[in-house]
Every structure is written in C-alpha cells, then in structure tokens.
C-alpha cells in the first residue's frame, strides 16, 4: 500500500479522525460549525462570542447555534507557498485555495477549498465539509473546508 493510500484509509476511518482544534466544529450530524447568533440583531458569529459585537445592536442576546449547508464563493486566494507554523500540512506541500464563503445562513467564513486551484471561480456554489488538513501520529487531523458543488 502506498503512503497516499494509507493516508486515505486514515482519513475515512472515523475513529482515527480528530479535529485540529476541539470544540469549533463537528461531523457526527453532518458538517457543522459551532457558532452563535444574537437574537436581537440576528448577527451570526463563529467562533462563539460572549457578547454581541454589533455597535448598532440595542441589547446583546447571544444563543449558541450551528452553521452548515451551502453558500457562495465570495472570493479566494491561494497559498502558493506553505504558510509558517502554527499551520501544519502533509509533505510535499501542495498549493491550495482559501475561500471566503457567504453561507446562505448569513455568515461570511474563511476556509480551505477541497478542489484544485484551477477549478476556482468567484460566485461558485459550495458546501461545507469536514476534511483532513494534515496527518500525524497515525491520525487524520480535520478542519472545516468548502467543496465546489458543480464540478
């Protein structure tokens, strides 16, 4: 078995998948970001906040909620070179696109794109996924990413 195949096996074995940072997202009930919303002014937040930060909001009232589903690629950039630590990645480094996505639920969120750089286009429909960002110590460390819907 090649190294790449071994990595794929790790990635799909849920017991060996671990979030790169705990508490921010989950995948048991589908890919979800764990955020919050102010029910006074309906401002969405990710990660969670203790108080509403909207200066126009009359009274902060924060409740926990999740964000997932689909959205639209507002713009994107490319990591043409490996970012410095604390970022971690599988070697050899493969450039990836970084999307800024407007989820249909009203949250604009940054995340790595799953698909190759050449397939990116502003305005494309995407969906939230949880995928490995690097492998270490026999585990696949996951993060949230976005996948193009029409490809």
């Amino acid at each position: 078995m090649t190294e790449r195949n071994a990595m794929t096996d790790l990635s799909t074995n849920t017991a060996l998948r671990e979030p790169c940072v705990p508490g921010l997202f989950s995948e048991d009930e589908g890919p979800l970001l764990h955020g919050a919303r102010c029910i006074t002014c309906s401002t969405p937040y990710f990660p969670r906040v203790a108080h509403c930060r909207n200066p126009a909001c009359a009274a902060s009232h924060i409740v926990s909620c999740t964000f997932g589903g689909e959205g639209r690629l507002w713009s994107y950039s490319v990591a043409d070179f490996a970012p410095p630590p604390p970022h971690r990645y599988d070697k050899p480094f493969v450039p990836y696109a970084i999307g800024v996505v407007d989820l249909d639920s009203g949250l604009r969120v940054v995340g790595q794109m799953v698909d190759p750089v050449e397939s990116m286009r502003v305005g494309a429909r995407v969906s939230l996924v949880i995928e490995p960002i690097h492998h270490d110590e026999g585990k696949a460390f996951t993060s949230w990413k976005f996948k193009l819907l029409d490809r």
Partner: protein
Amino acid sequence: MQEVVVLGVGMHRFGKTGDAIVGGKSVTELCRHAVDMAMKDAGVSWRQVQAVSAASSRFSGGKGWGLNGNDVVEDLGCTGIPVYNLSAGCAAGGNAFNVGYSLVAGGIHDLVLVVGGEVMPKGMIQTSGVEDINDPEYLRQRCVGMPGPAFWATLARRRMFDHGTTEEQMAQVTVKARKCSESNPFARFQKAVSLDEVLASPYVSNPLRLFEICPVSNGAAASVICSKDMARRFTSKPITVATSTVATIGFDDALPRSLAGPVPNGPSFHTEAKAAVMKAFERSGIGPRDIGFTELQDNTCYYELAFPEEWGLCEPGEAERLLEAGETTPTGRMPINPSGGFVSFGEATTAMGVFQIAELTWQLRGQAGGRQVPGAKVGLAQTNGLGGNATAAILKR
C-alpha cells in the same frame, strides 16, 4: 488648537539585513541616522526636542524585535523627556505622527520628534507562536493556513471579478512604481522593471506575484514637527500639517478580521483606511479633488487601484484606465506613490507612516528630483496596519 508644521525630515535608505545598505545595523542605529538628518534639516538641536513619539512594533506578547523609542532617546542622550511608544501594526508610523501632531496641536508640547524604524525578521511575518485557541490569529493559521498575502490576494481576486481588472494591469502598477524608484536615493530597489519581468515572477498568493508584493526591509524615518509660532524661529517656509487622523476597522468590513463575520449589506472594503481618509478630508476642509498627489500603503499593487476610487480621487472602475494612460505617474493627473511606494522600498513596518511624511515634505518643497510632482501643493498620506488600524495625513505648502 495650534497650527502644526513639519520642520525637518530624515531617512535611512531601506535595505535588507547583510546588504551593502543596512548591513548589520541595529534599529537604533538606523533611527539615529534618520533623526540626525531630520534635526539637521529642521535646524534644531536634540536639547530642543520636548517629546518623542515612536512607532513601535513590540506588541502581541513581545516578538523580540522592533523599535523601542526609549533606546533612541538613550542613544541621543537622556534628557528626561516623555517618550510615547505606539503600536498599531504597519500603521504605527502613522499613529506616532498623529500622536506627535495631537500633542503639538493641543498645546502640550511645541516641538516633537516622530520616529519609526525597523530591522525585520527574515521571511514572512509570523504570528506570535503562542498556541492559544482564544487567539483568532492562531485559529486562522491552524485551521485554515492563511499566509499574510492571502488577504490581499482575496481582495485583488474580488476586484478582478467586480471590475474586470487583469493580471497585466496589476503588474503595470509595479512597473510604474519601480520607474519612480529610479530617482529615489532612499529606495531599496532603484531599478526599473519591465512588464514581462513582473509577470515572470512567481505567484506568492495567486493572483499576486513576488514583484507585486512588498518584501520586508530594514529602514528608518524621522520628522521634527512644531507649532507654527515656534517654526518662525527656524524657517520662513514650513510645510503645514492640514490634518492627521487615525481610524479602526468597521463592524461591516468586507473581510473578516478573524475567521468569520456577517455577510455585509453591499460593498464595504477597507473600512479603516476609508474612515481615516474621509475624516482627514472633513477635518481639513480639503476635498479629494484638491489632492495633488498621494502616498498610499501599497503592500500590494492592488491597493493603488482600489484606494483612489474608494476615497473619491477618481471614479469607481476608473483606476485601471488612469493607470494605463499614465495619469498615476508623478507628471499625471492623479500621481500615486511618486516615492516608488512600498513595492520599491519594502516594508520596514513602523517606519512607513513617517517615511510618507518625509516624501510629502520633499515633494511639497520641490526637492524630489526626478520623481517630483510638478507644482505639488497638497499631498495625502495613508497607512494600514494589522489589527484593523489605519491613519491618514494631509500636508500642504
């Protein structure tokens, strides 16, 4: 309020650690050179300086590098004067100028030295290295992996979508900037580059290429400012500070500062820079069409296209046409960065806001040589800094 003037400016040519320009000089040595030059230009002695406003990059838990204004004062001789160390990322130089300006305008001091300088760590500017899940910068790097230039690339890509800007047009900005640098003895790079050379440089963060992004540099800049009343003792032709402003990012900014934010209602680009510049227009009574030339923060060439439109220096979507018609050169209708800009200097973070004041002063005095804006009367300067900081200043003669 007292009227504030620029009496003298100075600079150490920008370079890279180990090169023939800056070699192994410390940030204090670089600053000393710039300060001595500024005091000589002003005709003042160190003992006449009443306070120092220094741009400091020692923030975010102490990265172990960056200017400390107290070191500059110790080097010049401790006279017991107050030293203000201001941190605002790459906008710190602008903040230091603003604090110096405010101290003089408010009548607290009559003569203040403003200084910024940097010996930059090698490579990409890194985060503090502290793995704290409450730190949005840590989360962005750990969960996404978003190198600094990716922010600029995201905005540039969006502009390509909104306005049809091409990669050739962005490269053309660098060609224009580097042409200006040929006649700037303080620029790190003083050689023109061709469009082909820019387009042959590798992507750092697609669509932005190596020659379209400012590298990090070592350098320093200083200015001596004072009240108009006091200036009469030193010169008959001071440069007037029409205004100096500081602003921070708006809640509805298009680009989330950390991982996410609400989808804005309509365009809301660079809210900190726009707020600083709009406030400068309002306070000075000088409008965008009165501006003779501009020094803006071109960490990347993209900003030279976006900013002038957002501030009303030209119409939305007009920047590319003005660039191609040569109107952004020193002799054009809307000169942008006659100094050669960050793309020619590289960024010595905290020096930049003060570097712009020096360039504006030289331009307004008619001392800018081959990059002179003919008959320059009013100049605008603007900086942007990590953390949602921005500053603006308008100088006139």
